[in-house]
């Protein structure tokens, strides 16, 4: 079942994330896709995440597709102008990549090429509008006709926790108006704050125009926790969450992080208008089956007629292979 069909059918969707390798091979992507295939509906393939050069998002998406898992190709505005972005959508659509997730992108300052020219020719709202225009009007921005036009399911991102709080739901509204059909949010550690944002979203009726997937992360170490709290732009870790994860011995942080993720998923499922969750676990994909098992999503998904035959055991065996491939190519 495709991500679009899953969402349209009204059953709870699960997506995760793969970051392509720094190297000229898609093998690590293929291995991770095989690990996640039976557990999630689709997987994001990041676009030079954190402004660091990686294998191209379209190539990682194609490898994911060939490994039997539906990709969500991320597209940022940081590195390409409107000509290249439109061209990439055509390429993706021609290769069978249907889901496209549009985001502004991190500034080059934060990556391995801080001296690079930031492009930002279009912003994320304009890019959504452009892609929808290509699909629905069958033309590029210049007006020239596309034969055939691309087919795509358009996604956006939103950070419910960043200022200005009064404008965050409106900003999603702009993205929905511009063409977003689904949205994945930033990490939800603060469920109460997320509920406040969802109340604004429902007031604007956005949950009926756009599928909302709440972002859930699994903290795997104390270092990761500190990094997330202090260094990642736009992520807020509330004090009670921080204390809970620091309270367990360091070697149990990952297990506690996974438990917290599973609990968060259960809480998010009960919020009116939440259509699914997006697991922000790039680099920690092994945790996915355990989290979904504990959240009670694994069994429910197998019943729903998709190809979910994975068991925690077989996934563990696959994950060992995935890790060895990763070690080989470096991360």
């Amino acid at each position, binding site marked *: 079942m495709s991500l679009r069909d899953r*969402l*349209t059918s*009204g*059953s*709870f969707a699960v997506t995760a994330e793969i970051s392509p390798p720094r190297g000229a091979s898609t093998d690590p992507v293929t291995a991770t896709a095989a690990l996640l295939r039976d557990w999630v509906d689709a997987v994001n393939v990041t676009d030079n995440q954190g402004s660091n050069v990686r294998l191209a998002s379209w190539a990682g998406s194609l490898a994911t597709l060939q490994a039997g898992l539906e990709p969500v190709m991320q597209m940022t*505005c*940081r590195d390409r102008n*409107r000509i290249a972005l439109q061209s990439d959508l055509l390429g993706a659509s021609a290769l069978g990549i249907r889901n496209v997730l549009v*985001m*502004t992108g*991190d*500034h080059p*300052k934060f990556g391995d090429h801080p001296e690079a020219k*930031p492009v*930002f*020719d279009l*912003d*994320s*709202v*304009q890019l959504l*509008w452009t892609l*929808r*225009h290509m*699909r*629905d*009007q069958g033309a590029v*921005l210049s007006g020239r006709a596309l034969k055939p036009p691309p087919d795509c399911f358009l996604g956006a*991102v*939103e*950070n419910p*926790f*960043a*200022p*200005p709080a*009064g*404008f965050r739901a*409106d*900003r999603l509204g*702009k993205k929905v*108006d*511009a063409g977003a*059909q*689904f949205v994945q949010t*930033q990490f939800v550690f603060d469920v109460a704050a997320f509920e406040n944002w969802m109340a604004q979203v429902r007031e604007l009726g956005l949950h*009926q*125009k*756009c*599928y909302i997937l709440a972002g859930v992360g699994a903290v795997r170490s104390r270092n990761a926790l500190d990094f997330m709290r202090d260094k990642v*732009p*736009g992520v807020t870790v509330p004090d009670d969450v921080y204390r809970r994860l620091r309270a367990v011995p360091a070697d149990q942080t990952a297990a506690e992080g996974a438990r917290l993720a599973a609990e968060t998923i259960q809480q998010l*499922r*009960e919020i*009116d*208008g939440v*259509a699914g969750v997006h697991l922000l676990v790039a680099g920690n994909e092994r945790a996915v089956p355990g989290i979904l098992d504990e959240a*009670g999503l694994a069994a*429910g*998904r197998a*019943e*729903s007629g998709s190809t979910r035959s994975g068991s925690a055991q077989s996934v563990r065996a696959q994950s060992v292979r995935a890790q060895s491939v990763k070690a080989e190519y470096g991360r």
Partner: protein
Amino acid sequence: MTTRPPIPAHPRLGIRLAYRLQRALRPRRGLRWLSARIEASGLARPLFTETERITKQTLFGCRMCGQCALPVTGYVCPMGCPKELRNGPCGGVGTDGGCEVYPERRCVWVEAYERAASQGQAADLRLLHLPIDHRRWDQSSWLNYWQGRDEGLWTGEAAEAGDTGDDAPVPHHQPALGGS
């Protein structure tokens, strides 16, 4: 493009005065006539453009993109955003409202929201800004405005580009709690 990199600038013109000036300087017959005369003159046009540059650079950190968004952004220049975002803030705004790239400066969109909302104009920020024309850098946006060339910069009807209905997601249903 301009050589000056985008850096968030705090506007030096109070928002009330800014809106008052906006009302006073709306395109009218007199201003349309005057701006056409300035534009036609080989001497007046560069002088006028330079005056605009100095004024707006001082007041708003203007970089002369030539297609001014200030009237609908609480008179905070969005081209000072390091990502030049014209449709609202990115997701990296600090909890204190600081810019992701220049944390010691405030996000232009946080300021824009506060200033516009303080005058009941927060709805301005919902307008959809279309992609800009990069050929217009260093042109006078005042002349463009009075000559009516700025009218397509933003739209209130983002959905205008063909909502055929087929591709709009249908309202979804909540899964039964705890079930499949």
